[in-house]
Each structure stands twice: as C-alpha cells, then as structure tokens.
C-alpha cells in the first residue's frame, strides 16, 4: 500500500501545480525493463519488429479491464467519456495521476460526465504507470488499437512490485 499512499499524497501536493504538457516520449533510460523519458516519466519502448516493453503490454490489458467500458477501446472515447488519446496530448504524468486517483466530475447542461476515483482500486493503482505508458504509446500514434503482438519478457522487478502492491 506504500505506493498508493505515495500517489495519493503526491496528487494532493501536485494537483494545483501549473500544468506543463508532457515532454518527448522518447525513452532515454531503462530501469529493469521500465523505460523513462528525459523528465524521468514512464514511457513506452517499441522495437523495429513491433516488440513492446512489458509495461506497455500490461497497460493494454489493465486498460481494457478497467477503463475501456467508458473511455472506449484503446482510448478512443465514447458517447459519455473523452478519448484519452487526445487528453494525454496536453495532460502530463502528474495531472494524469491526480485524475485517476481522485476522479473528476463535470456536471452541466451538456450532460453528466462522471469519472470515479480509482485511488483505492488496486487493479488500477498497482498498474497506473503501465496504463499511462500504454496510453502514451497510443497518443504518440505508434500503438495500434489491438493487442500488442510481441512483448518483452515480464521483468523480475515488475513481478516483485506487483506482488507487493496486489498483496500476494
């Protein structure tokens, strides 16, 4: 649960910060199979033969378990929730964490848009970076709408973090 608390407190601190658009998604470092961009934010890595990093694949699965019912397949949006492949063009990593953790509501004449708070949902929060990385690949136009056909092996660091976060 440490990670959850960290995210929750981070989002409270950072929620009011001035928004900067996300930087270049190009991966510059690789920490045990997890790729990071120049800002140190998680990002995707796709090789020439279409092999995706494990986190992108994991994000694809978790997205389709918990997010797609409203946000549509592969982040394309629906009649009652926005397309995330557009949202993430302007929303940075920290803002993304804030919205996922705390939810957001827009209620008005043009209709009701209700995003639940996922802060206590392990299926989302234990994989919040994975989902971000997946959506980042989609936003950058390098990820298709379907299942990534080839993926890197599951890193030991992933298994360790997953076990700790999901509780065995």
């Amino acid at each position, binding site marked *: 649960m440490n990670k959850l608390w960290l995210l929750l407190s981070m989002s409270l601190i950072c929620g009011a910060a001035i928004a900067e658009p996300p930087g270049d998604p190009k991966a510059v470092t690789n920490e045990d199979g997890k790729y990071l961009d120049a800002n140190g934010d998680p990002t995707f890595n796709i090789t020439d033969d*279409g092999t995706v990093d494990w986190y992108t694949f994991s994000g694809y699965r978790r997205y389709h378990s918990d997010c797609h019912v409203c946000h549509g397949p592969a982040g394309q949006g629906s009649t009652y929730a926005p397309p995330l492949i557009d949202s993430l063009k302007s929303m940075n990593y920290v803002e993304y964490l804030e919205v996922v953790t705390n939810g957001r509501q827009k209620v008005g004449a043009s209709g009701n848009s209700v995003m639940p708070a996922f802060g206590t949902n392990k299926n989302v929060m234990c994989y919040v970076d994975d989902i971000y990385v997946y959506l980042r690949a989609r936003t950058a136009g390098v990820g298709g709408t379907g299942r990534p056909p080839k993926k890197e092996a599951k890193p030991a660091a992933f298994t360790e973090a997953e076990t700790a976060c999901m509780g065995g």
Partner: protein
Amino acid sequence: MRSFLLSATCSLALLGVVQGPAAANDELMKMSADPKNWVMPAATFDNQRYSKLNQITTDNVGKLQVAWTFSTGVLRGHEGAPLVIDGTMYVNTPFPNTVYALDLNDNGSIKWAYQPKQDPNVIPVMCCDTVNRGLSYADGKIFLYQADTTLVALDAKSGQEAWKIKNGDPSIAETGTNAPHVFGDKVLVGISGGEFGVRGSMAAYNITDGKLAWRAYSMGPDSDILMDPEKTMHLGKPVGKDSGMNTFEGDQWKIGGGTTWGWYAYDPALNLVYYGTGNPSTWNPNQRPGDNRWSMTIMARDLGTGMAKWVYQMTPHDEWDYDGVNEMILADMNVGGQMRKALVHFDRNGLAYTMDRETGELLVAEKYDPTVNWTTGVDMDKNSPTYGRPAVVPEKSTEHNGEDVNVTDICPAALGTKDQQPAAYSPDTGLFYVPTNHVCMDYEPYKVSYTAGQAYVGAALSMYPPKGESHMGNFIAWDADKGKIAWSNKEQFSAWGGALATAGGVVFYGTLDGFLKAVDAKTGKELYKFKTPSGIIGNVMTYEHGGKQYVAVLSGVGGWAGIGLAAGLLNPENAAGWHAAVSQSKQPSVEDKVVSTAGLGAVGGYAGLTKYTSLGGSLTVFAIP
C-alpha cells in the same frame, strides 16, 4: 398449446381453493390465454414465445408492410419487447428507463409517460450497455425495474407510482437490466453485475405492496441460497450442507457472481420458478478454485417459499464467462419416446439441455453449434463420478494454461453460442427456434483485486468468426428430443434479436444489421424481410387490435454485441497498428489478425456493423394492409 391449457386447468383448480394469491395469477392466466394481448415478456409463463394468432401465414407474410412507428427518444441498446393490454401498448427504453403508454385506439398517441430520476453514476457500472429488457403487468399495475435497481409499480391507467422499492445497491455495482416477471402474487427481479464481483440473487416481492417475500442468493450459506441440504437435489443427489460456500476458497463466495438477469419461467401446476445464474467472479478462474456453486446453474424454486427443489450446474468452475442466465423454455413433449414435462435451455456454453422440469433429471445435452470446441460433451452415465459434467478439452482450458497465457481459438466466445436473446417454441412443429452467435475467442486471464463498485474482470478477450468462416451468426431450428439441428440459416452478424413462433406457421426474428425477418417454421425458407431504422437486439412480439394481427419489434443497436456502436466507439484497426509506425513494410502475421478487446472483447469482431447500421431507438409495427 396443449401443455399450457393442461397446466392452466390444473392451476385454476388449485387456485379455486386458495384465495388471495389466486386473484393476480387468475387474471394473468386468463389474459395470457387471449392471444390478442401480449401481457408478459414472453407472452406466457412457459417462455414459449408462441402466439395462437394465425392471420399472418406462410402464404401472405410476403405482403407485410409497416403499419406505424414510434421513436423512443433514446439511443443505445433496445432489448426486450413492448406489452399490449386491452388496447394500450407499454414500451420502455434503455437508461433513463422511460415508460410510455401508447393508445392503440388513437394512432399510438401517448396516454402517459413516466421518466424516473436516476443517478448517472450507474452508467459506468453497467458492463454491456445500458439495456433494459422490458416491463410486466399484474393487478392494474405496470412494473418497471430500473438500472439503479429500483422496482416501481405504476398505475397502468395513469402512470402514477403505486409503490417503489430498491432491490440492490448501485454503489457496489448492483444494477438492474432484466424485465421483472410476475408469477402468482409476486413480482420477481434479479441482479446484474457479474463483471463487478456482485453476488447474484433472485428476489420475490408482493405485487400489492412491494414487501419482500423471499430472496435467494446464488452462493453462500444454506440460509442465503434457500437450499435444504437433504431435500434440494442436484442430478438425483442431495446438494449437502453449505454447498454454496464449500465450493469456493475462503470468502470468495461473497463476491462470487452468479447474477440473475435472464428471462424467468413458471409452471403453475408445479408452482416452480425456473431461471439460470451467471458467471462466477472473476473471469480469471485461477483466482477462485472449486466448482463455484451455484453459479452457471439452472434453478427450480418453489414460488411460495423460494426454496430450491432441484438445481443443475452446467459449467462447474467456469473458465470462459459462459453465463447460465439464458431462458428456460417449458414444454410438454416427447423425449426418448416418453411424454415429459420438459425444460429446454440453450446455454452460453454451446450446449442445449433438455431436462425433466419436475425432477431435474438430465435427458439430453448436445452441442447446438458444431464449432463448440471447449468440451467433448457431457457425461450422461448416471453411475459415473463425473455424471452431468462437461469434459473440458485441456488446450481450451484457461485454468489449465494458467494466468498470463493467451488461450486461442476457443469456441464459442464469451458471448456464448446464444446470449440473452430468447428462443421460441412452436407446439405445431415441435421445434425450437434459436437465434445464435457463431463467434470464437482468445482469452487471457490475469490477476485482479476486488474493489467494491469497480470492475472485477481479470481477462482480456478478442472475438472473431470461427476459422475459415465469415458469418458470425445462425438462426436455427432445434429438435430438443433428438438433440439435433433441424435446419440452419446463416446470418452475417450474430442473431441478437429474440424469436417469435406463430400458429400461422411463420417464425420471426430480428438481426443485428437491422432486418426483421420472417421464415417458414417447417423449412427455414425466408419469406419476408424489412430493414428497420437500426440494428435489432429486441424480441419480436405480436398482438391483435381491431380484428387485425400486428407484429412489432424494437430497433436500437447495442447490448454486448453492439456496445462498440452504442457507446459511439470508432472502428478498431487490427494489431498490425502496433508496428505500422516503425515498420511500414512488414506483412501482417497471423497474430496481427487478433483484434480489439473492447466491450469485453466484442468490438473487434463486430466492427463491420458500422457499415450496415447506426444508433437508433424505435418501434416498428407491421401488418398486412
């Protein structure tokens, strides 16, 4: 109709002695015996969806024309069918669940409309579109079961609320999609939310005041599941103590699924209610060892007390989301040379079951689509330790292959060989008319954690037509005695509309690309078709007004098969997109053909639908001019 008349006579005799509950049942029995009305979801308690009306015949159905239409004002999936009661038609819509009373004596003018106020937070916790499968009537009241699980009784004449109660809790993702069913003096409602870890139950409320008479959970202690360890029978043996707990590990039964959102049937002579239960939660079978009783089960319960007389679990320890909620059709028919009070059920798992509805004896279990490949069949040897169980093919077992393994080419897909779209039975031909899905899938289970009110799925799916084929549905006629297909018509998309059989020898059904079709009950020959404004996932019904027979169906694509369209989703490309940007010249491989998992796997295979139909919400009524 012999069976119906026989049971009607028996129950009327019984009812003569018992006062009180008799009144409602008596009234409904009388009204449903008049084919001019369509007074309950399936027209009669036995779920046969058969009408004695015979003005429209195989000879003249080709002359059918649209008589009038009505827009419901709501887009998204329109399942179910309207009711017709003495010159008034009652139609309801998907969320927000508006009810209209239309005056058939005045060109369908609106007598009254009822629009409930519901919290829109319920929308994200409805797994497979915001459908509602219709209304029921009894005792001068129209019953509506809302998305937020409010059961409301409306005065049929004025639309004023008589009473309302809340059956479930949408904050833990308990939702309402099924039509309420009135049997005797009770109105029965189930619960949806198998993809959110909801524990399913069937509840019976008194029609007079909305007081709870009984609630029977699908799993849990005996006091919750209303089973007697000694007297409730499973395949001829007592179920034993706490069967709904000791077939789960730990407390998994508390979030065990087994939801109850199908079409229920009632045999007044036996006073038994029949329904099926849905998938165990989660979709990852590795997280819930055991048979997970009583998910995936046919239930036969006493209407008065809710106690289970017999049960039959079709798919123990589900590994593919083959919900058992599909309708139970009651027919008195010859099975194996012997007259039986039979129950016939076309399950999502691809097997059609014929059972003795009095005793729960399993008589026939056969595949009703030859592509079904997850099982080699059901063990019919009464002396075998695996009697009544399907033999699972290891390569198609998502449990056997384990977490994080993508098991490919499983038939049928999670949608089942048939989903909720109800079949019909004609006592004239002795055949069952079944709208089916012809779809296979890849299924990859993975670990999930439960959070109340949030999705609890744990598997990624892709769906597509069977290998080497391009059509995704069939409309079949089934011989439930022999366990064989009598005839089969191909459909480009799943046949997701409910069937209607008539004494005119014509069978009707609707298609996902929007056609109302009429076929010859004997041969399946297509006699008429008409393209309605949107895809059909509703059920065809018929009624008589002013001496003329009408046929009506709701259009409005959506539901699980059409969720991509209903939610305004775009065309998914295939997996080749993953390297299109980096390697333009690469030829698509076999793996690349695997498409989207959205809509719990349904969007990919049905992407082509966008070419044929669009969102709608309308009723089309047909007649011969």
